[in-house]
C-alpha cells in the first residue's frame, strides 16, 4: 500500500509536458540496464561518463556488491533528503528503481513492468497493450 502523503505527491507532481518526456527516459534506463547486464557495473561506469550523479553513485554501490534492503534504504534516503522536485525527482525515482532491479538481476520485462507506472496509468496501460500486440 502506498500511503498517500501530500509532501511526496507535491514533489512528484509534473506538468503534462514534463510527463511526456518520461517514457523516453524509461527507455534510456532500460537500455542502461540491458547493457549493465551484459558488461557488468564496473565496465558500465566507464561508459556512463558524465551521467546523472545518482546513477553513477548507485552503479558504484552495485559494483561493490550492494543489493536488496541495504541498497533500497540508501537510495530511498537519498531521494527523501534530496532537493529535487517535479520531473527531476521523478527521473531520480526511476533511476533508483532501475538500480534496484539491476542489483537483483531482474530481466528487462520485469524492469519495464516496474518502471511503466511512473509514466502515469494511461501511458502505462497503452504501452503494456502495445507490447502484448507486438508479441502477437
Amino acid at each position, binding site marked *: 500500500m502506498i500511503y498517500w502523503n501530500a509532501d*511526496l505527491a507535491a514533489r512528484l507532481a509534473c506538468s503534462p509536458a514534463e510527463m511526456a518526456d518520461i517514457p523516453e527516459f524509461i527507455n534510456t534506463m532500460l537500455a542502461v540496464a540491458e547493457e549493465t547486464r551484459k558488461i*557488468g557495473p564496473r565496465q558500465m561506469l566507464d561508459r556512463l561518463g558524465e551521467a546523472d*550523479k545518482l546513477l553513477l553513485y548507485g552503479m558504484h554501490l552495485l559494483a561493490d556488491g550492494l543489493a536488496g534492503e541495504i541498497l533500497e534504504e540508501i537510495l530511498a534516503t537519498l531521494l527523501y533528503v534530496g532537493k529535487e522536485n517535479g520531473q527531476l525527482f521523478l527521473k531520480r525515482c526511476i533511476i533508483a528503481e532501475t538500480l*534496484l532491479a539491476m*542489483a537483483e538481476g531482474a530481466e528487462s520485462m520485469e524492469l519495464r513492468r516496474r518502471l511503466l507506472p511512473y509514466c502515469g496509468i494511461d501511458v502505462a496501460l497503452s504501452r503494456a497493450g502495445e507490447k502484448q500486440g507486438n508479441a502477437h
Partner: protein
Amino acid sequence: MLIEKLALLYERWGSSQMETPPHERTQQHTLPLHKFIQSVHETGENRKEFYLLSRQSRRKIIKLAYLLLADAGPPWSAEDSFRKAGFFAPSSRVPKHEALMWLEGTSALLEGLHPWLVLLMMSAWMGLEQAEASYAWLKELAAAQHTELAEFIVPSEMADMLTDALENPRLIETSLRIAGMPLAASAIAGMPLYHIERILKLMGPVGSALLRELIQSAREKLTSEEIAAALQAFMEIVTARSEMLTTEESEETSLEEQPLTDEATDAELIRTMSELVMELDAKILRSTLATMQNTEVASMLRCLEALAHERVLSIMPPGRQKRVLEALEELGTAGSIRLVRDAQFFAQKLLAAYAPRPLKPGQTLDIPASVRAHISAILSRE
C-alpha cells in the same frame, strides 16, 4: 517497492527539507561520522571499549550511540532511546536529519551490519554530495586496510560447480549481490585462493575489501561443515540464476512460436509449490513474502493450490492481502513457462531468507530436508 519505502519515510518523519546548508555539513556531520565508523570498526566486539568512547565523546547524540552499542540491546530499542533522549522533540537542537542518521546507524550496527555498510546508509542522510564524499573516504580506507588471505580449502562437491560457474562472471556478480555479503563470504571462504581472487576482481574496491574481511571472519568463526553448507546455499542461487537466464533467452527467441497464454496447467509444479508453502516455517514464509512486491506475491499465488493460497494470504496483514488480491486479478492467467519462472523466483527469495544476515558464529544454514527437496525440484525445472 521504492515508492512505498519513500512514502513510509514521509509518513513517519514528515517533510524532508534539510536545515543545514550543504557546505556546513562536512565539518559538523561528516567528519564525526567517519571517526565514529572507524572507531566501531576498530573496536570490533570489545563492548567495554564503547563505554570508554562514549565518555570521550562530547556530543550527546554520539555518546548515546556508543552507549547503545555497548549495551548491545535489540535494534528496535534504539529508536525508543533516541526519543526518550529528546532528539526528535520539536525543541531538539539536533537537526532532524542528523538525528535520523545516528538512529539508523546505531540500529544497523545493533543488527550486526558491517560498519562500512552502515557508513553508506548513514551518509545518505546528508545528501548525495556527502554520500559521495564518504564513499571516496571509504575507498581510501579500504585500500589501506588490505586483508591478506592465506590458502584455506574446504573440500566440497560444490567447489567444482562454482569453478565452472566462474566462466560466466556476470552470473557470479549477480549471484553475489542476491546472496548478500555474509552468505557470499561464508560460501567462498573455503575455495582455493586463486578462485577467491577471481571473484574479488569482479567487485569494486570497497566491496572486494569488505568481502576479504568477511571471508577472514568466516574462516575464524565457522566450521568446515558450515562453510560447505554456505557454499551449497550459494550454488543454489547461482543455479537458479543460470536457469532463469537460460529460460529468458529461450523465451526471447521463441516468442513468435508461442501463444501469449498457454492454457495447459502444470499440475506437478503446482503440487510441489503447494507442498513447499505448507511445509515452510511461518517465520521464514513471512520474511520471504516481506521481501517480495505485491505483484510478485500475486504471481506466486497462481502456482498454488487453494489451501496453500490461503496460507500465504493468512500470513499477511489484511491490508496487504487486499492489495495482493487486487494485483492477482489484474495479472490474470499465466502460461506454464511464466508459472515456472514465478515459482523459481519465489524459491530464490526463499533461499535468501534462509541465509541469515549476518551469519553469526556457530550458526548453521538450516533448511529442512523436505523443503530443500522441493526447492531443488522447482529450481531444476526447465
